[in-house]
């Protein structure tokens, strides 16, 4: 009995000292990681504490624990608020269009680039196509507001050619705003998006092309019967995974390119939250709106990932 106890104690002490020995040996690893883990706790998990604000009438002077709790009131008023629902509609529409166009055009560009034989020409086009990706949205908005402005070159040419009498108000038409925005986003990201498709195309077995040539296939047929089927798995994975973004329309585009005349179609959740949250101090309500967005975003990522898993052997986790 006594002996057993002593043994237990000893082994306990031994594991203890072994742990501390490991800790001591790995002290540099600790030094190299613990500060960043703390950083993660503060900057990634810290905001989650603030989610509580969604369930109360948050008063900055009282702080999160002393503010009045109101349960789900903000979530309910969200569904009764036409302006908030409009922002949801615009978010889904804009990001939906972005996902569709943002997946098709890079694929088409990659297929076109792949057919170019002149390496120098191909490189030049590619290099230029990355340019808009690296430029800030402020610059992009500035360019498009200028080029398609009332006195911009596009209107000038259209008028000179006699195609229109009055300059077209490209950016003041709420009926076309979604499509204009999609156009700008495609323009910005098409080259960047094509990189991954080009890599997939480069991985296609060259013998397939040779076989197709022997069978008398032309260029279009080779694209249709060899290239596209070969890269289809990659394409499907990318498309499915991008579905997770459908509730995430960017702040930049709507804030910079939208104006009061187009607010009806340009106001998305992100701009709505900014306007009412930071500018007008409706902290709790806008936190509830963001929370809803995050929650739906999770569900969408989960669904798209399950789909990806089912139809391909690829998934995020």
């Amino acid at each position, binding site marked *: 009995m006594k002996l057993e106890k002593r043994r237990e104690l000893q082994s306990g002490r031994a594991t203890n000292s072994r742990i501390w020995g490991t800790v001591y040996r790995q002290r540099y690893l600790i030094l190299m990681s613990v500060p960043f883990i703390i950083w993660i706790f503060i900057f990634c998990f810290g905001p989650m504490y603030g989610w509580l604000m969604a369930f109360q009438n948050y008063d900055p002077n009282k702080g999160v624990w002393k503010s009045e709790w109101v349960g789900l009131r903000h979530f309910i008023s969200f569904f009764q608020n036409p302006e908030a629902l409009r922002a949801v509609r615009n978010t889904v529409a804009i990001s939906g269009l972005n996902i569709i166009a943002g997946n098709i055009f890079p694929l088409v560009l990659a297929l076109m680039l792949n057919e170019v034989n002149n390496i120098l020409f191909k490189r030049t086009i590619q290099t230029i196509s990355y340019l808009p990706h690296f430029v800030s949205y402020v610059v992009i908005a500035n360019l498009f507001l200028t080029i398609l402005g009332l006195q911009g070159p596009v209107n000038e040419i259209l008028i000179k050619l006699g195609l229109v009498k009055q300059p077209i108000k490209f950016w003041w038409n709420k009926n076309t705003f979604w499509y204009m925005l999609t156009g700008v986003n495609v323009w910005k990201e098409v080259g960047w998006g094509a990189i991954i498709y080009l890599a997939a195309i480069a991985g296609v077995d060259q013998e397939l092309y040779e076989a197709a040539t022997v069978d008398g296939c032309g260029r279009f047929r080779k694209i249709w019967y060899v290239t596209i089927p070969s890269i289809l798995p990659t394409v499907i994975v990318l498309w499915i995974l991008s579905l997770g973004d459908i509730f995430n329309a960017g702040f930049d585009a709507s804030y910079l390119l939208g104006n009061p005349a187009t607010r009806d179609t340009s106001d998305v959740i992100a701009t709505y939250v900014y306007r009412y949250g930071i500018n007008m101090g409706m902290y709790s309500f806008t936190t509830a709106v963001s929370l809803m967005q995050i929650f739906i975003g999770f569900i969408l*990522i989960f669904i798209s990932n399950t789909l990806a898993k089912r139809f391909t052997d690829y998934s995020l986790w």
Partner: protein
Amino acid sequence: MKKSLGEKIFDWVNGVLLTVMAASMVYPFIYVLAISLNEAADSNRGGIFFLPRKFTLDSYRIVFENNDLVNAALVSVGRTVIGTVLTVLCSAMFAYVFTKPEYIIYKPMKVIFFMAMFLGGGALIPVYMLYRSLGLLNSFAVYIIPYLVNLWFVILFRTYYIQLPKALEEAALIDGANELRIFFTIILPLSTPMIATIALFAAVDQWNSWRDTLFFTSKESLKTLQFVMMEVMQKAQARTMITRAAMKMQRIRQVQTADPVSVRMAITIVTTVPIVCVYPFLQKYFIKGMLVGSMKG
């Protein structure tokens, strides 16, 4: 191999379409450049498409002699340099620990990491409140500290490290070097291509960032170039800036040769040039980096 007529037509059409696309990406910049170099009063008459008609550098003179803009440029450069160095260093260091499965808290650390990937960031107001309680609002630190570690970059670095040869590291360990030393003397020097890629990504993010200025600061002295440009774009600011600059330079002529539009164009060019000068040379790096990243999800 001889090409058939159909193939030739195909090549031509393809080439023309690609050229048109590339032109559409370059032309806006050319137009903006032309306007920024042309006398404002003359630009208003229209008809400028490629080249300036009445050449002047006055818009640029206003940009570079305006104290607010010079200050904004300094803030932009400052956050880009400091932010990039720190982000690259911190992300690279953190990623190195992720190559050590024997590390005593490796597993919990991994769980924390992936939770942060899915849950991090998000709602604007809670982030705002957090920064406020940390005293980050209205300080330069808000441009640096929230970006110290980039989880995405950590993954990129890690995928790069695990394909490095282990022998050097083991040799150093036997010689009694600690991990910190190994990281700085062996791992970092071996990963220059990855560092170049990530430095480019981080620098571009920092240089282009303007939302944090809008959300978290209200001080004049913390405005970045992008933010000032955004303000000028929304016009309120431009007039006063021009008249102030004109008065300072005691040249009434200025008001004729530069106006809000031409100054806006000049700022656009000034903010774009650094990027145009850098990214083409890092192409082969960032393409590789992007592919590694997308394979890993």
